């Protein structure tokens, strides 16, 4: 499984030296086994999340024990349950408030694609507003399926390239400063 991820990154500009690869693997190891989840629970899947985090199907043995109900402190956003049109801006705002590195899991079929609620009120999948890493189908999914998805996510995190200092361009601003001309692209 992890060979598939490695095969993608052999291009010249992404080729990593030995120490860089070591650091990346180390950071990946640390990040994947200490996920702080933000359980953005709305609906019936919340019941299965409560089961997953309880004593029988223990999510703590995978490192993802503590839910952090503040987006600033969390790195895994689990969108649990149906997101409707009223909730969508709030979800997007919570996602934007989270700090890098962050991952998103769409828990349940309503979060993945809208489920069988194809009507005026429901957002047809959260990937229309935020990028998703792992989709968990099921209505609601069994806890074993959730743990399988978590392991899949952990493999994905382990195989990503992590850097100590990340020179990626910053995310676009949320608020436009006053005095900018919006039509001409920002320069007066």
């Amino acid at each position, binding site marked *: 499984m992890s060979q598939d991820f490695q095969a993608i990154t052999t291009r010249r500009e992404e080729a990593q030296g030995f120490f860089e690869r070591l650091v990346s693997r180390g950071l990946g190891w640390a990040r994947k086994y200490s996920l702080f989840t933000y359980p*953005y*629970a*709305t*609906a*019936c899947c*919340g*019941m*299965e999340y*409560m*089961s997953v985090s*309880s*004593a*029988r199907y223990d999510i703590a043995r995978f490192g993802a024990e503590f*839910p952090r*109900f503040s987006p600033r402190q969390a790195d895994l956003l689990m969108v649990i*349950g*149906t997101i*409707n049109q*009223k*909730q969508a801006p*709030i979800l997007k705002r*919570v996602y934007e408030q989270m700090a890098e590195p962050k991952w998103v899991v769409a828990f349940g079929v309503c979060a993945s694609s809208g489920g*069988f*609620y194809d*009507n*005026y*009120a*429901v957002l047809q999948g959260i990937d229309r507003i935020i990028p998703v890493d792992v989709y968990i189908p099921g*209505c*609601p999914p*069994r806890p074993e399926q959730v743990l399988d998805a978590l392991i899949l996510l952990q493999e994905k995190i382990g195989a990503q390239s992590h850097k100590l200092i990340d020179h990626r361009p910053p995310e676009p601003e949320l608020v436009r400063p006053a005095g900018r001309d919006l039509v001409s692209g920002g320069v007066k």
Partner: protein
Amino acid sequence: MPEKHDSTESRVTENALEARLPTKTMSINMGPSHPASHGTVRFNIELDGETIVKLDPEIGFLHRGFEKSCENVTWQQCLPYTDRLNYVSALCNNFGFLTAIEKLAGIEIPERAKYIRTIGAEMHRLCDHLTCTAAMGMELGGFAPFLYGMEARELLWDRIAELTGARVTTSYGRIGGVEKDLPEGWVQKVKDTLVKVEEFRQEIDQLLTLNRLFIDRTRDTGVISAEDAVDFGFTGPMLRASGVPYDVRKAHPYWVYDRVEFKVPIGTRGDNFDRYYIRMQEMVESISIINQCFEQMEPGPHIIEDWRYVMPPKPQVYSTIEGVIGHFKLVMEGVKIPKGEVYSYTESPNGELGWYLVSDGSGRPYKVHCRAPGIQLVSGLEHMVKGSMLPDLIPTFDAINMIGGEVEQ
């Protein structure tokens, strides 16, 4: 630069510390994604210090268009939508909806189906009460009752999964009965499970009921008088906590509730502790009802044989023309319920769950209205906590047991 305050008075004659200064209330927003809000509710609270002056619950963050979806599918296809209304006790919703359809169509279901429906509803009532009391314990600071409650709920869900195929959203009933009969050996397994659930319930009881911290948080908080509770339209444990003895299972018995003996706990003070304790006692009664049903049940059919409402058995579908046509009509056009309207009600764990159905004779519903007990409970929240402190909101909101799926449909 200080603003001009016309109403600033400093009474020089009295203590200078008591100078009256103008104050403004602070508005805070307990947002839709909050650990202490069961599901997603936004509270716009105005506070004077720590005292709640005004509380405005804003709901709608889980509105999934239940009624509109039901109007566009057939009667049988509405069943999964009803599961997801009160998703903690889905069997109660399923069976309530089907009871309403059967009342409208004038169908009488077989005896065994009535017993199975009672057993299923009581098992999910146990799940709901366990979730409510466990979450109440957790939000007041104790994580251990939550874990005991969740484990007890898992044991019950194992049995429900053996019976219906799913843990949470079951879609088990059918018009005219239930989908399949009880599995082999299930009755004995359930009896053993109920013994273990009772042990877990006693653990939660010992941790919370006489706990000084729990009592201090829940005694005399969120009080509502019996008259106000009736005026707001409360039903269920919230109404019984205020002293009004109304339980649909006793007042208008349905299925087999007139053949089993059980008590209905009634509270005296109308506060959160009474609501919690009523739920604990109702769990004991539910276990007793299930055991009595097992003793009284007789073997028999679990669904009626009328092919206008029930799918014909598969060997008939594949070999006889009547079976094929019956199956085709039921799937493509839906069950043809006669024209009319009906209001039917059952006792769900939160209160009286009412269904108002209007049928126009075709296979699709014309109107499906679910009278969710939670709506009036949340609308009465402001009346219950006005004047108390902000932390009193938490146990009150937990005791209401608002399930987003039914309040926002």
